[in-house]
């Protein structure tokens, strides 16, 4: 059909899909979220994933995180919240973006990030902080910045040369970037996770890599090899980028238990633009963003829990 200046038609099939209270919408959301994570991970396994594709997937996940943050919770969301519903947030985000886009292209990206922080409620705010930080971790490795970095760098996933602060300590520097995403009350974070517990892990025929049984199976085998978890491995050609995925996907939660965390994995695993960061040949200069460090959190057991969880995703 040819029309003049016609906007997209409102399709009746989409009615239920856009109705947030409809279970179809919820299941579709879970499906899209899971597929996006899977898609991103597989994309990172490619030698050089497409930047456009990665940005689109990340934006989709960001949008879903934003919508989820603004979904009314059971026992939260103060009545005087500034954002009363998803529609307002959806409309707010584009309106945030459009005026800024008219001035400067770079401003668009900052406003898009700031849109993530407009979630209402304490727990949703913290969740949005996490989402923003997780997505930030995605993009830190975007730059294949041969032009800025005079030194040849070894390619390690999830790193951006521009944002690196070179350090001989492999795990120390990440604190600056990783902690930013996890500032705030840990209790608040737990509240958010309780809400997220309500989401079931979507088991779909499409998700061949993320069944819970597989993850639990991976836990056992991962106990044998802890060396994979910390520090950087040498990254030569064909280094599987997916192996480093868990370092950047798991939030640092000392109170998390393995099973409880796994059920929320589909929410935590936001992608990272790993392969856009060609990196130095010296592993020491490339700290991982979210690699857990037992020095930050007390208790060896918590570190081991994190090890297990990250190893799960490594194997997956």
């Amino acid at each position, binding site marked *: 059909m*040819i029309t003049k200046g016609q906007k997209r038609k409102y*399709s009746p099939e989409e009615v239920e899909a*856009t109705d947030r209270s409809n279970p179809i919408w919820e299941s579709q959301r879970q499906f899209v979220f899971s597929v996006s994570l899977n898609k991103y991970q597989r994309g990172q396994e490619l030698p050089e994933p497409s930047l*456009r594709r990665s*940005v*689109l997937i990340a934006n989709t996940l960001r949008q879903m995180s934003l919508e989820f943050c603004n979904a009314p919770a059971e026992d939260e969301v103060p009545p005087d919240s500034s954002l009363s519903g998803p*529609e307002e947030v959806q409309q707010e985000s584009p309106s945030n973006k459009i005026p800024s886009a008219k001035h400067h292209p770079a401003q668009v990206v900052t406003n898009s990030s700031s849109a993530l922080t407009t979630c209402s409620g304490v727990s949703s705010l913290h969740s949005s902080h996490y989402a923003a930080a997780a997505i930030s971790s995605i993009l830190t490795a975007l730059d294949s910045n041969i032009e800025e970095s005079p030194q040849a760098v070894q390619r390690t996933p999830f790193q951006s040369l521009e944002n690196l602060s070179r350090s001989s300590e492999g795990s120390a520097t990440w604190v600056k970037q990783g902690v930013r995403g996890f500032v705030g009350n840990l209790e608040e974070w737990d509240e958010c996770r309780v809400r997220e517990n309500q989401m079931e892990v979507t088991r779909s025929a499409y998700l061949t890599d993320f069944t819970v049984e597989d993850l639990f199976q991976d836990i056992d085998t991962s106990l044998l090899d802890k060396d994979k978890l910390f520090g950087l491995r040498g990254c030569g050609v064909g280094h599987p980028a997916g192996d480093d995925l868990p370092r950047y996907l798991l939030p640092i939660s000392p109170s998390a238990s393995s099973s409880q965390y796994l059920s929320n994995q589909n929410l935590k695993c936001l992608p990272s633009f790993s392969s856009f960061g060609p990196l130095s040949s010296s592993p020491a200069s490339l700290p991982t963003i979210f690699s857990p460090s037992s020095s930050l959190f007390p208790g060896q057991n918590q570190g081991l829990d994190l090890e297990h969880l990250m190893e799960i995703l490594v194997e997956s």
Partner: protein
Amino acid sequence: MAGVAGGNDFQWCFSQVKGAIDEDVAEADIISTVEFNYSGELLATGDKGGRVVIFQHEQESKSRPHLRGEYNVYSTFQSHEPEFDYLKSLEIEEKINKIRWLPQQNAAHFLLSTNDKTIKLWKISERDKRAEGYNLKDEDGRLRDPFRITSLRVPVLMPMDLMVEASPRRIFANAHTYHINSISVNSDHETYLSADDLRINLWHLEITDRSFNIVDIKPANMEELTEVITAAECHPHQCNVFVYSSSKGTIRLCDMRAAALCDRHSKFFEEPEDPSSRSFFSEIISSISDVKFSHSGRYMMTRDYLSVKVWDLNMENRPVETYQVHEYLRSKLCSLYENDCIFDKFECCWNGSDSAIMTGSYNNFFRMFDRNTRRDITLEASRESSKPRATLKPRKVSTGGKRKKDEISVDSLDFNKKILHTAWHPKDNVIAVAATNNLYIFQDKIN
């Protein structure tokens, strides 16, 4: 020029098909770009194997005046080879992303071809004479014994079989960190622009070791990246104007006279989103995959996943025309996202008079829209309808429950058969459609 389908006096018919018939398609044979030159005499294709094949239009034969003449292979050469970036430990694909012809200024033809990282200027020249009667060497090239040379002779030019030579004249390398998606020759015929995901560079055709960066949307902190450049093109008449499209469905028109760095646009084209049609994939399907100026320079056309939009350069807030290419896919976006088809980048093109536009779809369908009569037509590029001068039968996709006899249901569409690249002859009603590894040429039926 006649439009898309104007009643009984205008129909599209099959002319030729180039490429292998085998069911197993070699990855390297997949056509990645198609482009007519300014006169339409030459048709260039690039493939994933880095090769360029140029077809030349032969004049109509007197014995068969009802045919327009055929395109036959004129030259074939390897434009790009796979390279290895030692710094990043990455292989650079040899796939030809774009070919753009330069206006012809002498007997030779020039074109620009690019892969992800390097642009090359190729000269295609003919040689149909050779010199014979050298003094110092024999006809087979062996040097003659100097003591045997007793007389002097002047070499004469003798005709020979036509030989078409392609030689790289310029190599423009090391200017793009990200993947080049567009090149566009400026109307001044001296400069051209190249665009990757985050930057646009302006080159002079004679200078290979320098280029000017005119657009840079890379944020200071890569964590804040949410938008990439998807296509760029120079204005056909104003050498200071160019446009670039983004993954967020916006188009920015820039004037190079305003500043050396065109990060601040002169015009910003964006259609407000319909909130009622918002879905998880709204942004992905709004991503513009191609932008083309009209030949007149007054309009531009953009292709997103589901539609083609015609914009008046004087109106930024909405397009003047919107054509739905395959609206029946809107309810299938979830599946298309899952199988990655939603990321396909379709191109679009104008006809010579800007009265019609064409773009591709799935199942080897391609669509043409007549801007004047408001008629549209769906045709298929298939071997089954490849009989000489066979009229193409319009195809239809059924969206409702009841499917008519000749219709095909949405679920039966083959999403592996996608037509991403099409080209329209600049003067005649001849179109070239790339279907995976085959190039179909259709023309209007002369009655």
